[in-house]
C-alpha cells in the first residue's frame, strides 16, 4: 500500500489545486474552502484511501471533483449563480466566469459519469486519454460519454 506524504506537507503543496478547482466548480470561496477542509479531513481519517495507483495530484483531483459535484447537486441556489452572469453570446472560452457558471448549471443536472467527464474535459481541459487514465477506463468509453454529453446539451463543441 502506498503511503501519502505527511498530510500537512501535502496540504501546503497540493492544497492550492484542490481549492482552485473547488472554487471553479462551485463559484463560491466559502464552499470551496469547505471542500478543501473535507478532502483533507477525510485523508486524515482514512489515509488508506490513496492506494498508489495514480499520482497524488491525480488522486486529489478525483477526490475534490467528487466532493464538489456532490455539493453542486444538493445546492438549491445554483440557478442564482447564473443571474447577471449569463452571456448569450456564443463561443465564450471556458476560463471566463460566465462559462464556469454555465458549466455549473449543466453539472447539477448530469448523471455522475457525464458530470465527471464534463469537469475533466471542459474545466481541467484534459485530453481524452488523460481522462481515461484518471477514471481507469478506456479512451473509447470516454469518447462515447463525451458524445452523449454533447447530444444532451446543444452548443457543446
Amino acid at each position, binding site marked *: 500500500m502506498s503511503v501519502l506524504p505527511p498530510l500537512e506537507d501535502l496540504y*501546503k503543496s497540493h492544497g492550492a489545486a484542490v481549492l482552485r478547482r473547488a472554487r471553479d466548480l462551485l463559484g463560491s470561496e466559502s464552499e470551496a474552502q469547505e471542500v478543501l477542509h473535507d478532502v*483533507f*479531513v477525510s485523508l486524515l481519517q482514512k489515509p488508506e484511501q490513496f492506494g498508489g495507483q495514480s499520482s497524488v495530484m491525480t488522486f486529489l483531483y478525483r477526490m475534490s471533483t467528487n466532493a464538489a459535484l456532490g455539493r453542486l447537486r444538493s445546492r438549491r441556489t445554483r440557478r442564482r449563480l447564473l443571474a*447577471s452572469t449569463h452571456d448569450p453570446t456564443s463561443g465564450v472560452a*471556458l476560463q471566463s466566469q460566465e462559462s464556469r457558471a454555465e458549466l455549473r448549471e449543466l453539472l447539477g443536472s448530469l448523471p455522475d459519469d457525464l458530470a465527471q467527464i464534463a469537469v475533466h474535459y471542459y474545466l481541467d481541459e484534459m*485530453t481524452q486519454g488523460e481522462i481515461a487514465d484518471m477514471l481507469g477506463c478506456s479512451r473509447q468509453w470516454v469518447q462515447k460519454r463525451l458524445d452523449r454529453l454533447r447530444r444532451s*446539451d446543444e*452548443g457543446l463543441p
Partner: protein
Amino acid sequence: MKIARARAETCISDLRLDRWALGELSVDEARVTEEHVESCPVCQARHAELDRDRRAFAESAPAFPSGPKTSAPAVRRGPWGWASAAGAVALAAAIILCIQGLATESRPRPTAGTRTKGGPKLEVYVARGGEVFAGTSGLLVHPRDALRFSVSLDEPGYVAVISVDGAGVVSIYHPRSAVPDRLGVGADQALSTATELDDTLGAETLYGVFCDEPVAPTALRAAAQRSRETPAFPPGCRFDRILITKVLP
C-alpha cells in the same frame, strides 16, 4: 449557451501543469511539457496563472484542518484560522444576520436593480465579545475585533477590500483568492471573508474597491502601497472608504 475549452487537446491540461509544478512527472514527461509550454502562449499564460494561485495559497491559505468540524464554539487564530472554526463560522453567521437586520443611518441605501446615487458602498460590521454592531467612518475598534463587510452595488462588478493601517501596511481583507468574485446589483451583499484585527494601533482606512474587470487583489494592494493617501486604482475601478481607529480596550 456554449461552453468551449480555452485550450486545444494538443495543449497541456491543468492536471499536467499541476503535476509538473510539483515534480510528479517523469523526466520525459517533464521535458515534453516544458518544451510545449515554452512554445505555446496559451499554456504559458495558464501556467503563470496556476503559479500565481499557488503563491496566493502559500501566503494566505486556511489553516490546516486538525479534524472534523465540531459544534463547540472554539475560535482559533491563524491567517484565517477562525474562518474555518465552527465558532468563527457561527460568529460570522451572526454578523450576516446583523447585516440583514440592522439599518445603517449614515448613507442612503441602494435597492436591487436601481442605480445608486454616489456609486457602490462599503459597509463594515464588528464582532466583539459576542456582540455585533454596524460601523461607520470614525469607528473605534480594538485588536482582536472581527470585521466582516457588506457591499451595495449599483452595477455588477468585482469586489475587493483593501486596508491601509496605522503603520502604513497594506493588506488584502477580501478576497482570499487570486481573483475576486463578481457580484450583481444589490444592497447589503455580505462578503465571504472575515478578518480579525491585529495589534497595530492607530488610524486604518478600509477601501472597498469595485472594478468592471477581475483585477488581481495584489495589483490593488500595489496601487495602495504606491500612494496611500488616495490610491490610484486601475481604470475601471471605483472605491468607497471607511476610516476606523484601532485603540486599546
